[in-house]
């Protein structure tokens, strides 16, 4: 099966006339993704690598049967682009930009939820279900179809993990970049239930890092609800402690929450297999399978 995207996903590329938008629209199409439309205000009627361009997501929706959208638009226009896609009825929105204001994402996060839209990103390489569809900019020759579901906060570390797996002949069901920002559209906990239900996925790999509480929240969910095995890597062991502004931060996260050691501890307690080095991933996964 795979999660979020498959061979039936019909994709809109918002910002398709930009440098990255047009380049990656053509690469996604080449990979086999059904890219049905592009959107750039004022550029309606053109074609980019054979993909019709519309002035708005509404127009694109009227003329195609799109159900997903990816945004290659600058951070300052990202909120508007996300809201437009949700308002037009898109069910899955992936936003690439790095540097989106956090209050913009806070609103978009809840607006997506209120409208049953799954929002992925910002600051993500996107999603790929190897052999079926790619909604993002990752280098697709690294990926191999298989039964490992991968979620990562860092784009580059997800490449690292996938590269290690594929080199040892272990394929992936779906690989998702959660994104590195402090308020992501979706977190580990939102996607774990989808992997648990997915018949193609037999094992899940979580790639986390220092800061925030997404790993801790996921640990609780894994302990209580997950039957499939979960493997995790947490980056940032050697990172110095961040500076905390004001006193409010100390009130919110007592007890070392956010630190690598704490994350490892709670994940281990939840029955997650922890790896210390990225290069161990293939060995650990094949032992469990």
């Amino acid at each position, binding site marked *: 099966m795979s999660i979020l995207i498959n061979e039936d996903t019909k994709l809109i590329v918002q910002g398709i006339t930009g440098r*990255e938008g047009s380049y990656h629209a053509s690469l996604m199409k080449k990979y086999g993704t059904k890219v049905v439309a592009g959107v750039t205000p004022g550029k309606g009627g053109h074609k980019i690598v054979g993909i019709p361009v519309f002035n708005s997501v509404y127009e694109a929706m009227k003329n195609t049967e799109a159900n997903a959208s990816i945004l290659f638009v600058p951070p300052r226009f990202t909120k508007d682009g996300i809201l437009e896609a949700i308002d037009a009825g898109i069910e899955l929105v992936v936003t690439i930009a790095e540097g989106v*204001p956090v209050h913009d994402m806070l609103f978009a996060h809840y607006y997506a939820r209120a409208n049953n839209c799954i929002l992925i990103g910002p600051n993500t390489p996107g999603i790929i279900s190897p052999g079926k569809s790619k909604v993002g900019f990752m280098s697709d020759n690294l990926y191999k179809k298989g039964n490992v579901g991968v979620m990562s906060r*860092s784009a580059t*570390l997800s490449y690292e993990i996938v590269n290690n797996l594929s080199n040892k002949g272990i394929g992936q069901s779906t690989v998702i970049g959660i994104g590195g920002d402090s308020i992501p559209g979706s977190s580990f906990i939102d996607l774990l239930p989808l992997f648990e239900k997915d018949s193609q996925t037999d094992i899940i790999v979580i790639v986390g890092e220092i800061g925030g509480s997404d790993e801790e929240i996921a640990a609780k969910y894994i302990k209580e609800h997950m039957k499939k095995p979960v493997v995790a890597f947490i980056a940032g062991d050697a990172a110095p402690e961040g500076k905390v502004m*004001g006193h*409010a931060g100390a009130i919110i996260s007592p007890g070392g929450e956010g630190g690598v050691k704490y994350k490892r501890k709670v994940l281990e307690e939840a029955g997650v297999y922890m790896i210390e080095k990225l*290069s161990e991933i293939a060995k650990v996964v094949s032992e469990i399978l």
Partner: protein
Amino acid sequence: MKLHEYQAKEIFSKHGISIQKGKLAKTPQEAKQIAAVIGGPVVLKSQVLVGGRGKAGGVKIVDDLSDVEKVADKILKSEIKGYKPKGILVLEKIEIKQEFYLSIVLDRKMKKTLVIFSSFGGMDIEEVSKKHPEKIAKLYIEELLGIQDFHINRLLPLVDNNREMFSKLKKIVKTLYSIYKKHDSLIVEINPLALTENGDLVALDGKMEIDNNATYRQKLLSDSENDEEDPIELIGKKAGFVVIKLKGNISIISNGAGLALSTLDLLSKYNMGVANILDLSGGATPEKVMRAIKVVIQDKDVKGILFNIFGGITRCNEIARGIAGALKSIPEDISVVCRLQGTNRDEGINILKDVNLDADTDLEETVKNIVSTMNRG
């Protein structure tokens, strides 16, 4: 980006929150003039962006106006935790009946805005939280709902149901929330919020931190007043990079924060210290790579540069062109090792081969390589 007290208070005042009379002074003479206008006892407060200013001697009450110049001179010359003050805030001293704590903060974990109020202000709020949890109220605000009267009404018992004062407090909470939103804040804090003898509520201190991703639409402040970074971090910031200064002599240049972090982890497993980390982020051009190299070689601690690139939107050949182009500008005593993987890897490796640089594709091999090079040299 953190704001100085005087900047935060300027914003508070503009929105109708009362502050003490006073002004920012850049010199002892200016401090004296401002104090003369105020005309009574004054408080002199060093403007630095670090906490614990009072305990470090950065806040002084001066009763005799003839002492102002001398005290101001001392404060201006005193670094606090290694930071030079940007000036002195000269304020009228006011009589206080009670001190409250009020802050509005973005709670990343809950993905909500949190309003924190305490009737025990002035002191460490962590302490109050531990010793008198009943004196603190935490109000979570749903993003799509925004702050409503019913939220704030929950603070009424904390001010002993004093309705007259509560109506003033309510207004301040609402104003502070709108400042928080309008200025893309991660935190806005008033500690203490003072109840004066006349029954007014006055912000005696002000802290704000603005989301760095939103500074483009918060043009009210000039950046140079708010620099708190290490010099090399600052050089990086001006060149458009996030640089983190650490202790050691290897510079890590990477195309993602996660990759940089795990490179740091791996180096520390080999007991190698890292001088700094520079994140190129996605899609770097050769010019950007050259700019990055120019930044890190200004860090005198750097004796080796480790490039760790796993191309996605970043193309390895573009990175390699940047490295090749800047190679001559790198001092001879700095060794360079490269790891290229992902998009256009082989083109990148060939470009580096032409300038006699061997690139690895495996991260651990690259780390071992720089470890042995550095230990030799």
